[in-house]
């Protein structure tokens, strides 16, 4: 294979994996505290439209990212009130959030459907970007790509090397024990949920402001759900989230290259487009076959409501 093709596949893979990393790491934090928020799809959709609209009006993509983050936080706050304060079922509430977010984003986004944003330039890291094959892919990228790596490093440190991270994990394992030794389990779950929402919003904004860069109804097209699946696939470990996200990114871009390659391959495009979803199912099957791995790594109280005995 031509090395320039390899290089551009690598480049596109990293870009496609980036929103998955950001969203999945946010969900990872929420899930580590015991909160399962199935609303990632809705939060991403809201982040995408908020980011797009604000970027279009302000001309500043970074304001757009902040707006996406704010939209994600607002959505996850609704979720947090319903499941943490009002103790509603997390599965049903997450679904409701997805339905609400996808619907609301389509509603808000209607007037923006024909708009296009200017492309945001990449940030080139001198010298490193000149490396063959991997140079462009790793060191001549969108700022949010670098952000996703920083996020990964930060979260790994936070979870395994910092005291607040330890407390967060304790709340996820046993909120009642954490509560009884004086930690405010509900407050910690609130913060973790809002962080998950913020990252989902940023991931959504990445799609509409940097990746496409336009707004189409339903443009998140399952990435929020794939991010949730990624966390399971990664058995709640940040490094495996990173690896998994690039695997999925690779699956997502491969079809574009097959279609653009001019090769006489007689596969309908729909079959290639279905690959990421099928891949998600396959990895879920592989990971869940081994029950012990999942059980050992899943936060024990995941999805369980908690109410301190007053």
């Amino acid at each position: 294979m031509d090395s320039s093709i390899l290089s551009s596949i690598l480049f596109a893979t990293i870009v496609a994996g980036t929103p998955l990393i950001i969203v999945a790491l946010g969900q990872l934090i929420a899930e580590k505290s015991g909160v399962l928020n199935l609303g990632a799809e809705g939060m991403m959709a809201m982040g995408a439209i908020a980011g797009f609209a604000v970027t279009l009006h302000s001309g500043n993509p970074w304001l757009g990212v902040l707006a996406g983050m704010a939209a994600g936080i607002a959505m996850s706050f609704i979720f947090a009130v319903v499941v943490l304060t009002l103790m509603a079922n997390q599965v049903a509430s997450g679904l409701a959030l997805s339905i609400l977010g996808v619907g609301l984003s389509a509603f808000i986004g209607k007037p923006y459907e024909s708009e296009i944003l200017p492309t945001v330039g990449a940030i080139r890291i001198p010298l490193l970007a000149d490396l063959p094959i991997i140079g462009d892919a790793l060191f001549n990228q969108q700022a949010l790509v670098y952000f996703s790596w920083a996020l990964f490093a930060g979260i790994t440190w936070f979870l395994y090397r910092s005291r607040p991270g330890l407390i967060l994990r304790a709340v996820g394992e046993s909120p009642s024990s954490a509560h009884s030794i004086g930690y405010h389990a509900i407050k910690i779950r609130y913060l973790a949920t809002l962080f998950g929402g913020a990252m989902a919003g940023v991931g959504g904004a990445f799609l509409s402001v940097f990746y496409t860069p336009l707004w189409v109804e339903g443009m998140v097209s399952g990435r929020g759900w794939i991010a949730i699946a990624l966390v399971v696939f990664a058995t709640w470990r940040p490094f495996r989230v990173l690896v998994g996200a690039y695997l999925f990114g690779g699956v997502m871009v491969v079809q574009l290259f097959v279609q653009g390659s001019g090769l006489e391959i007689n596969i309908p495009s729909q079959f290639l487009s279905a690959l990421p979803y099928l891949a998600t199912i396959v990895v879920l099957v592989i990971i869940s076959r081994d029950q012990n791995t999942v059980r050992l790594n899943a936060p024990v109280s995941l999805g369980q409501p908690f109410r301190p005995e007053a």
Partner: protein
Amino acid sequence: MIRLEKRPEASQLMSYASPLIAIVLMLIGGLLLFAFLGKNPIEGFKVFFINPISDLYGVSELLLKATPLMLIAVGLAVGFRANVWNIGAEGQLIVGGIAASAVALYFYESEGIHILILMVIAGAIGGMLWAAIPAFLKTRFNTNEILVSLMLVYVAQLLVSWLVHGPMMDPDGFNFPQSRMFEDPALLPLLSDENRLNFAFVMAIGALLVGYVFMYRSFAGFQMQVAGYAKDAARYAGFSAKRMIWIGLLSGGGMAGLAGMSEVAGPMGQLTEHVSNNYGFAAIIVAFVARLNPVGIFFASLLMALLYLGGEQAQQYLALPSSISNVFQGMLLMFLLGSDVFINYRIRWKEATA
């Protein structure tokens, strides 16, 4: 200060009142939304909720829209009662619609009642097959059925897109991505000449009755109810969890497939990429608002259908995107889940000094 206090036992009254509270909150939310959008809230309310059903034809359209919702919701409710989370009814509906369309096209230009009967069977089986994938993976590999059934929605959408662009495309259709229009023998009979309401509505009422008998009068239904309330108790009693997963997913899938059939053989009269109008997801809301009860499903489907029709009216008369329906639907479910807290808890006002 407001404080929540656990009730000694769950409030029966609140479990019926909370859907009504949620509906009221949704209406208030709607009024605020209209006001926020610079529309007269009263006018908006009238266009959205009153206009669609102001005449008999409107009511028939309401029942027509409610039909797939009733079918799917009652099928999903069977599984939801046992905590089997089939979220992919949208995909199962599409595959059911594809299967029924395949029968219709196979018997193109022939006659006989067997065509419709085979379409019904094919629709239900198509939906069940699609739901069997998460059921198999759940029972065999313990794979999360929520994520698998949801991923299959996207796969089903791509599948129907491929079919109407390829093998099932109308050969005389100027390359439009849609199948041939079905002929009369492949269309569900209308209930009256005045409107579009068809036999599927009768099937939906039948499904609600069957669902009621299954849930409240059959042993399997009882087992699933027990499993939903107390998983360990069900296991201790020796109820097969795998069997419940299969029943839960297949009933949802079969009913969703039937709904797909009723769409292609009903108001659409052909297979297109837009077999479903989000019915698979809206039916999840219907099932919850109805407290997984068939009688409730009847009324909740009417409400949800009204939200669909209201969205169409709002598009036409208020120049608002029809996706406003989804906003109302999402709000409704959110409010419902929130107000459910009062089933098990009550509000106590405590002195601020405490």
